[in-house]
């Protein structure tokens, strides 16, 4: 899968035919000969399949080349910048879970229409609140709160950014978990647990939660891609240095090695996220474990 993605991106970048060196043409002090020499230094004079093969064989050994714009190896650049993005993403996941789990549990326990309606509204609102709108509103709020633009506390900004990033997650997690809990509660084994004389809370916590958690784990693994994509917006709006802003500057500088490096890195991360989701599911559910191991 990662192979396909990298090949497609590489082909697109190659066919469009522009690179960081194209802009040098505008400078009259740089002659065609210099550009041609630079091209051969970076290997840009080679045909596309050869360039892809070279890039791929280097990438397998962990060498993603050197960024043309930042003049440092791509891999170290991506690693250092991704730390802050992953912190932000982890905080977003934590916030989303902190909303979804208690709310859906309370909604299931008390079966009240007001709580259900509230959950419904929260899902609708968080689902249709685009991250860019939320990020801008967060920026406006943070600007309003502080007297000058300088003394904006970074901790507040971090949590605002995480909250912005988590909004779509809240909707997805809450919808999944709440829906799944409702469905599980109609199962026969729940009736059996009730017949044993367990209290309603014990029935939910001991018998309903685990089977209801399965689809949520899948969704959580799948939503990592959305979080990484959303971080581009959130980081740019709120001015945080991370993987997202790195991607934007790479695109603006048309820094092909860096763009490829980030695409490769994020697709690997997404793939790992999916695998992690499935693994957690296997730990949670013995039926899946017996099938796959």
């Amino acid at each position, binding site marked *: *899968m990662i192979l*396909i*993605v990298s090949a497609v*991106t590489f082909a*697109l*970048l190659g066919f*469009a035919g522009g690179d960081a060196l*194209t802009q040098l043409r505008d400078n009259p002090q740089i002659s065609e000969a210099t550009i041609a020499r630079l091209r051969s230094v970076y290997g840009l004079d080679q045909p596309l399949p050869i360039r892809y093969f070279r890039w791929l064989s280097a990438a397998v050994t962990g060498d993603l080349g050197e960024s043309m714009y930042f003049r440092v190896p791509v891999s170290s650049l991506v690693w250092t910048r991704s730390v802050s993005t992953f912190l932000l993403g982890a905080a977003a996941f934590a916030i989303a879970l902190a909303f979804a789990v208690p709310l859906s549990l309370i909604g299931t326990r008390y079966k009240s*229409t007001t709580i259900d*309606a509230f*959950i*419904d509204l929260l*899902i*609708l609102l968080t*689902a*249709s*609140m*685009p991250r*860019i*709108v939320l990020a*801008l*509103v967060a*920026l*406006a709020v943070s*600007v*309003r709160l502080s007297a000058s*633009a300088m003394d904006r506390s970074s901790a507040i900004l971090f949590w605002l950014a995480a909250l912005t990033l988590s909004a779509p997650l809240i*909707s*997805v997690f809450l*919808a*999944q978990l*709440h*829906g*799944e809990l*409702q*469905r599980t509660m109609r199962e026969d084994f729940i009736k059996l647990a009730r017949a044993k004389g367990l209290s309603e809370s014990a029935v939910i916590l001991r018998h309903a939660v685990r089977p209801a958690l399965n689809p949520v784990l899948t969704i959580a693994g*799948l939503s990592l*891609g*959305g979080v990484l*994509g*959303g971080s*581009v*917006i959130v980081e*740019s*709006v709120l001015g945080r240095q991370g993987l997202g802003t790195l*991607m*934007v500057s*790479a*695109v*603006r500088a*048309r*820094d*092909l090695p860096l*763009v490829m490096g*980030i*695409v490769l890195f*994020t*697709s690997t991360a*997404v793939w790992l996220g*999916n695998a992690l989701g499935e693994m957690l599911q296997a730990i949670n559910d013995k039926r899946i474990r017996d099938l796959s191991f």
Partner: protein
Amino acid sequence: MNEQSTRDGFSRRRTDRVAVIGWLVIAVFALSAVFADSLAPYDHRAQSRLEPATPATTIHFSGLTPIIYARRVEDPLRRTYSEDTSVAYPVGFFVRGYSYKLLGIVETDLHLFGVRSTSGVAPRINLLGTDQLGRDRFSRLLYAVRFSLVVAFIGVLVACLVGFLVGGVSGYAGRFVDTFLMGVTDAMLALPTLILILGVRAAFPLELPMTRAALLLLLIFALTGWAEMARLTRGLVLSLRKREFVVAAIALGVSQTRVLFRHILPNILPSLRTRAFLLLPTFLLAEVALSYLGVGLQEPEPSLGNMLTAASDLDQLRSQPFSVLSPAFAVLLFTLGVRLIGRSDRV
């Protein structure tokens, strides 16, 4: 995402009423896109050096007629303005302004509303204030909505066509073709879309004129948006392939293309339409994101995204947050409208 389970709390009647609100919102957006020139009081490119970054014009009433006053710069550095209440200018409907072509056909200079000049040059009415170059933000917003909606709409059509073809072939041909096409589709679906879009964007020159930028956005949407439609189409085609009327058509010797387009397509169209409709805000947001990051539509043409870059002027954001963020609220309203309709199945 999970409409079935979330809809339980709403009764059918309530859902219908909610959907009507959604349709109204979409209708307002569609109308303002079509009649942007008539609704906008000023040319979206016209700069006014005397009034950069003004707050929204205050509308006063003298009796029943709405009036506005001319504004004077009080402090050019801090951009504060005061009203000159000596002359009142009435605000009226169907005022003459710059000329344009209504619906691209009729040449006219009538605008829905504007300021009538009683003596000399009338001051400008800026419902949402002006940007740093003194351009009327309300007019720009209308043109931005037009551009964003047209691009998103055509983008959805193109993406649907590609998705339908891939999904149809995949579901119909089966076996090896199916495995390969769905492998690619799954790879596309798993990727962070925005990163992918930016990656594709990096392949093209940074600065583009309006039509080229629009075409590029369409290409990007088609390249990145087809996967979801393909997945849906494949599932639907698979479920219909063994049905009697399809088998009958094949037995009668109808060609495969004809079976796909004449027998299968009409049956799966409603489901495809619902999903396509939900793609609209996705593409709208992608356009907003790209233009906001400075790699979509570029100045001086307005788009919802590049208008939002004004938010980086923190002083203006602090003093007039609602005017500066008005494009964001437009996006929010549109997304909400589509979601409300999406909740009821009858799209």
